[in-house]
């Protein structure tokens, strides 16, 4: 089959041409290290900024999920409820599907804690009896979306016979999640704007590149080069700018994380937290480089398309 083998040969030469142009574009960038470094550095900073914000937000979200325990409900029982009844109530409540865990604080324990933490310990000496009620601290099963379920649980617990007061400070949890959502949105807004910036940076660099290679473009057109052929080296250049920019952004992000890790761990230790700083991970790093490469490609595509039309042999 001479025809199919010829087509195979053409296909092979097409791909080897692509490979050659791809490497030649990289070589061209390598030949002008200063200019290349400037462009890719600007791209990488534009990318590292939203990536850094994203990581910060990711860590705060992780931290706040650790804080779900803080949205606990304190059940203050009537003072005349004895320990036995209180424990029976606790056992019953532990089977509730919305409740993760219950801490039992009896009157004496409560008094001890109060003495230690309130600073009014001496004043308590003048009281004949322990005025404090038994307290059940209920840890609800809670996730981000279920702030409402928690308040429903509180309403339910208020109806319990022995319970005098059920208190939940749900407001601050709601505020925190709203703040996180706003921060999340702003990361997206900033990312979108900086993505446009990357498009413009690559576009502008490619525009200069097209101008300096004007002669080559004219000659190529005269000897029958198709637009796709002429566009190709510029598209690969844009792709390389993006990929290198993405790699540099990864390096910048990793370095910043390393710099911040030890003070953050120290802080976590002060809070007796086993918090660990989360990085980007391999998948997201690859995604970053992919997106960055795509931005470079699109940026050069837009520019080359516009400027090639203006260069015609005369």
């Amino acid at each position, binding site marked *: 089959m001479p025809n199919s083998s010829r087509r195979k040969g053409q296909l092979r*030469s097409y791909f080897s041409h692509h490979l050659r142009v791809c490497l030649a574009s990289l070589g061209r960038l390598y030949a002008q290290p200063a200019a290349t470094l400037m462009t890719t550095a600007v791209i990488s900073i534009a990318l590292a900024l939203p990536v850094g914000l994203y990581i910060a937000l990711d860590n705060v979200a992780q931290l706040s999920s650790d804080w779900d325990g803080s949205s606990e409900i304190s059940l203050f029982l009537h003072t005349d409820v004895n320990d036995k009844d209180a424990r029976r109530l606790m056992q019953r409540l532990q089977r509730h599907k919305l409740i993760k865990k219950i801490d039992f604080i009896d009157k004496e324990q409560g008094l001890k804690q109060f003495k230690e933490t309130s600073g009014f310990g001496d004043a308590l000496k003048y009281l004949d009896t322990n005025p404090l009620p038994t307290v059940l601290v209920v840890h609800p099963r809670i996730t981000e979306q279920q702030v409402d379920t928690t308040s429903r649980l509180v309403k339910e617990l208020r109806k319990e016979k022995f319970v005098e007061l059920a208190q939940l400070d749900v407001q601050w949890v709601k505020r925190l999640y709203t703040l996180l959502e706003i921060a999340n949105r702003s990361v997206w807004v900033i990312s979108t704007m900086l993505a446009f910036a990357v498009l413009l940076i690559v576009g502008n660099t490619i525009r200069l590149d097209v101008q300096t290679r004007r002669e080559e473009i004219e000659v190529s057109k005269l*000897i*029958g080069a198709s637009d796709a052929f002429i566009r190709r080296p510029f598209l690969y250049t844009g792709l390389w700018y993006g990929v290198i920019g993405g790699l540099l952004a990864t390096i910048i992000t990793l370095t910043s994380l390393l710099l911040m890790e030890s003070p953050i761990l120290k802080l976590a230790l002060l809070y007796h937290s086993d918090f660990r700083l989360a990085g980007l991970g391999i998948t997201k790093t690859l995604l970053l480089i992919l997106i960055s490469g795509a931005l470079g490609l699109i940026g050069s595509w837009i520019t080359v398309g516009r400027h090639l039309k203006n260069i015609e042999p005369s």
Partner: protein
Amino acid sequence: MIHFDNICKRYPGGHDALNRINLRLPKGQMAFLTGHSGAGKSTLLKLIAMIERPTRGQIFLDGVNLNNISNKKIPYIRRNIGIIFQNHHLLYDRPVFDNVAMPLIIQGYRRQDIHKRVRAALNQVGLLSKEKKDPITLSGGEQQRVGIARAIVHKPLLLLADEPTGNLDPELSLEIMKLFARFNQVGTTVLIASHDLDLIKHIGFPSISLHGGQVEHNGLPFTFDGNR
């Protein structure tokens, strides 16, 4: 090979470069295009290479009406043509070999074929030993020959040359013209714009002279149907 049917070319601004041109250049013919500067020689070549489009009339290239060719298809028309310029249009950022190889790379030839053909083309213009040199280090005549090698490397059906000897001394000019005659002998149609009348007389090919955008004298032989 080339058929101009009542071609007019008016540039923006109202200058009539060509006015009602009728021409037939048969396949395998070599001819000169003469006339003063501004007579329309370059415009005529540009219309064939589709660098410009005619204002009126039709051009047929190897039977294809160029008016029906969209801008996107122009590259494929140009691949059948070898174009040679007075100022070479060589790229100085790459060696001679790479300059000559350009048309083959554009058309997706395989590496081995490119090597063979480039060396053959350089051999024909007598520059095989200079394939690794930078064009800037070559003399004017040598640079022009590199330009010619690039124009013939893909064996085009038609060779167009615009003042190819404009910057060369008479001896070199004659050598270049003889080179064109040699390509013509193997079947390539050749059309050369030149104002060097002495040289043209010496070489002895028919010439078409233009004056003020019109054919003043047509030295081409008549075709069988009485046109030329």
